[in-house]
C-alpha cells in the first residue's frame, strides 16, 4: 500500500510541470491562439531559471527568472502572430526550434553546475497522516499552486467578466471587436500570461524536478502539453487531471517494472497519445458540442476591419 502512496506522490510531482504548461497553453487557446512554441519556451525558461538559481542561490529568484523568460519569448511570438499576422503554426515552430538552439547554447557553461542542496518540503501536521500524508502532503509548494491555479482559472473563465471577455475574444473575435474590446491587446496579454506559465513549468523542471541543466531536458513535454488542452476539452480542471495521467505514465512504467509486471514499455508510453486521439475523435464528432467548447477562432489570424 505504501508503494501506491509513493507512486501517487510521484505522479503529482511529475504532473505539475505538464499542468503549468497546459494551463498556460489553455490561456492562449481560449483567446484563439495556438502556440506551437511551448517546447522552446520551456527550454529557455529552464536554463534561465537554472542559471538564475546558480547565481543567486535562491530557488524563487530562479523560478521568477523562468517566468520572465517565458513571458518575454511569448511576447515576441505575440508580436509576430497578432500584430504582423504571421502564420501561427510556422511561427510557433520557429520558436520551438530557436528556443531549443538558444537554450542549448546558453546552457553550455551550466552543464556541470549544481544547485544548493534540495530541501524536502512537507506540510506540517498533514504530512504525518497515514497514507494520505505520504501521498499528497510532501510536495513542493508549486504542486499545490498548480491545483489552486486550476481552480482559480475554472472560476475565472466561468464567472468573471474578464474571463468571459477572453472567451468572447477566442470564440468570436469580430463580434468582440465590434463591441469595442481591444481584441489584439487582449490576445497579446493572454499570450504573454500563457508564456509565463509555460516558463514556470520549464523552470520548475530544472530547479525542482531534476535540479540539473541538460540540453533538451524538456524532452517533448511542451508538445504533450499541447495535446493536453485538446485532451481536456479546454477545461482547466481536466487539464490538471490529464497532466497527472500523462506525467504519471512514466512513473507507472517504473512501478510496474519494479513489481515484476512485464509490459512492453513502449506500449505503455503510447497510451497518453492514443488517449488524446481518442478524446479528439469523441469530442469532434458532435459539431455542436465542439462549437460550445473549442474556441472557434483557434489558429486563425484576426485583423480588425478586415
Amino acid at each position, binding site marked *: 500500500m505504501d508503494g501506491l502512496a509513493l507512486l501517487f506522490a*510521484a505522479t503529482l510531482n511529475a504532473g505539475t510541470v505538464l499542468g503549468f504548461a497546459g494551463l498556460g497553453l489553455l490561456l492562449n487557446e481560449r483567446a484563439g491562439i495556438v502556440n506551437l512554441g511551448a517546447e522552446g519556451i520551456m527550454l529557455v525558461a529552464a536554463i534561465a531559471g537554472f542559471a538564475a538559481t546558480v547565481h543567486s542561490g535562491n530557488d524563487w529568484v530562479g523560478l521568477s527568472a523562468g517566468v520572465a523568460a517565458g513571458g518575454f519569448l511569448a511576447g515576441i511570438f505575440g508580436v509576430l502572430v497578432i500584430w504582423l499576422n504571421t502564420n501561427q503554426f510556422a511561427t510557433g515552430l520557429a520558436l520551438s526550434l530557436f528556443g531549443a538552439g538558444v537554450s542549448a547554447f546558453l546552457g*553550455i557553461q551550466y552543464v*556541470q553546475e*549544481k544547485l544548493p542542496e534540495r530541501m*524536502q518540503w512537507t506540510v506540517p501536521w498533514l504530512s504525518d497522516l497515514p497514507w494520505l500524508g505520504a501521498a499528497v502532503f510532501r510536495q513542493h509548494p508549486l504542486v499545490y499552486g498548480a491545483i489552486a491555479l486550476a481552480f482559480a482559472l475554472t472560476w475565472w473563465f466561468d464567472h468573471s467578466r474578464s474571463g468571459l471577455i477572453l472567451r468572447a475574444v477566442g470564440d468570436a473575435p469580430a463580434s468582440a471587436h465590434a463591441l469595442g474590446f481591444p481584441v489584439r491587446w487582449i490576445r497579446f496579454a493572454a499570450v504573454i500570461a500563457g508564456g509565463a506559465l509555460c516558463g514556470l513549468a520549464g523552470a520548475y523542471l530544472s530547479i525542482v524536478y531534476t535540479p*540539473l541543466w541538460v540540453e533538451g531536458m524538456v*524532452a517533448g513535454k511542451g508538445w504533450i502539453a499541447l495535446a493536453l488542452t485538446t485532451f481536456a476539452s479546454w477545461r482547466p480542471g481536466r487539464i490538471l487531471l490529464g497532466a497527472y495521467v500523462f506525467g504519471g505514465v512514466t512513473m507507472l512504467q*517504473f512501478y510496474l*517494472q*519494479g513489481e515484476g509486471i512485464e509490459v512492453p514499455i513502449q506500449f505503455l508510453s503510447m497510451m497518453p497519445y492514443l488517449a488524446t486521439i481518442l478524446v479528439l475523435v469523441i469530442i469532434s464528432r458532435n459539431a455542436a458540442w465542439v462549437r460550445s467548447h473549442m474556441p472557434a477562432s483557434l489558429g486563425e489570424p484576426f485583423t480588425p476591419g478586415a
Partner: protein
Amino acid sequence: MISTSKRSIVRLVSVSALAAIAALGGCGKKEEPKPAAAPAPVAAEAPKPEPLKIAFAYIGPVGDGGWTFAHDNGRKAVEKEFGDKVVTSFVEKVPESADAERVMRDLASQGNKLIFGTTFGYMEPMLKVAADLKDVKFEHATGYKQAENLRTYDSRTYEGAYMAGVIAGKMTKTNTIGVVGSIPIPEVIRNINSFTLGAQSVNPKIKTKVVWVFEWFNPPKETEAAQSLINGGADVLMQNTDSPAVLQTAGKNKKFAFGWDSDMTAYSPEAHLASAVINWGPYYVKATRDALEGKWTGNSAVWWGVKEDAIDIVSISDKVPAETKESIEKIKTGLKDGSFSIWKGPILGQDGKEVLKKDEVADDKFMSSINFYVKGVEGKIPTGK
C-alpha cells in the same frame, strides 16, 4: 503560377546571392583547423616532425559529468603526456546516425591520423570510413567488429560495479539495493550482476531491484526511475546511465548512491558513497604511443580494468567504515596481481542453477555474452517483447 518576369527576378536574385557567397568564399579560404589546445611549438634548429593529429568523436557533451566527460579527461591526459608531439581535437554530440559517418570522414580529411569513436553506435560508420581511408587508424570503444585499421577497446566497468556493491552491501539498512539500468546489453547486465555479487560478499541477504530507462542519458527519466526504486524500498542506488540525476534523487530522499563513469561527489555530497570511475587516460596514452612509434596494429580488441589503472573506485565517503575501505584496497590489489577474480564460481543464476562451478573462473568470452541475472536480482531482463 509564376510568370516569366517573376522567374527572371528569381534568377537574378539567386545569381547575385551566389555571387556574393562566392566572393565571401574567396576570403576565408584558408584551412586552419583549430586544435582544442596545443602548446606553441618552440622554434628549434632541426625541423621537428609533424605532430600527430588525433581526433575524438563524442556521443554526448563534454560537460555531462559522466561518460563523455571521462573520455575528454583521457584526451587531456594524452596532451599532457605528449605535449607538442600531438595535436588533439574533438567533436561532441555526434549522433549515432548517418551524421556520424560524415563527421568521421571530415575528421580524417582534416589530417587526423588517429580517430577515437567513443560509443557503440559508431561501429558501422567507422567500419565504412576505415574501409575507404586505409591510412587512418581508428579506435572504437565498446564495439565488437574490427578491421585492419580499426581496433576496439573497452573497460571492465564490472570491476567498479563489484567494488561499489561491496560498499552498498555494508551500507544498506533495508537489504534492498537498486540499479537504474540504461539499455539491456550484456555490459549493463554484467554490471548489475557484479554489483549484486559484491554486495552479497558482505551481506548474503541482499536483494537487487532494477528498473530500465532504455536510454543512456535522460536526467528527468533517470530521476523518476531512481524515485521508483526508492519507493520500492531500495536505500542504496547504482546506475548505468550517464548523468548525476540518480545520485541527486538519492540525496533528496536521504538515501545513498554512487557516482558512475566520473567522480560525482559534488552533485550530492550527503548521498555520495563512492564513484566508480573509468580512466581512459592510460589506454589513450598507450594508443597514442603505439601510433607515434609505429607499433599500432588493428584487428585487436583490448579490455582493461583495475589492473591497467583503467578502472577505479574513488572518493569513498567517510561514512563508509574503515574495514570496508580496507577490503576494497585488498580487492584492488588482488585484481592487479591476478590473485582475485570477481567471476569465480560457485555462482548461481536466478533459477538457482550453477552458471559457474566452484573455483571455476569465467573467461572473457563468457563475460561478454552474459544475458542472465544472478541469484539475488529481482525481475526479468526485458526482451522488449
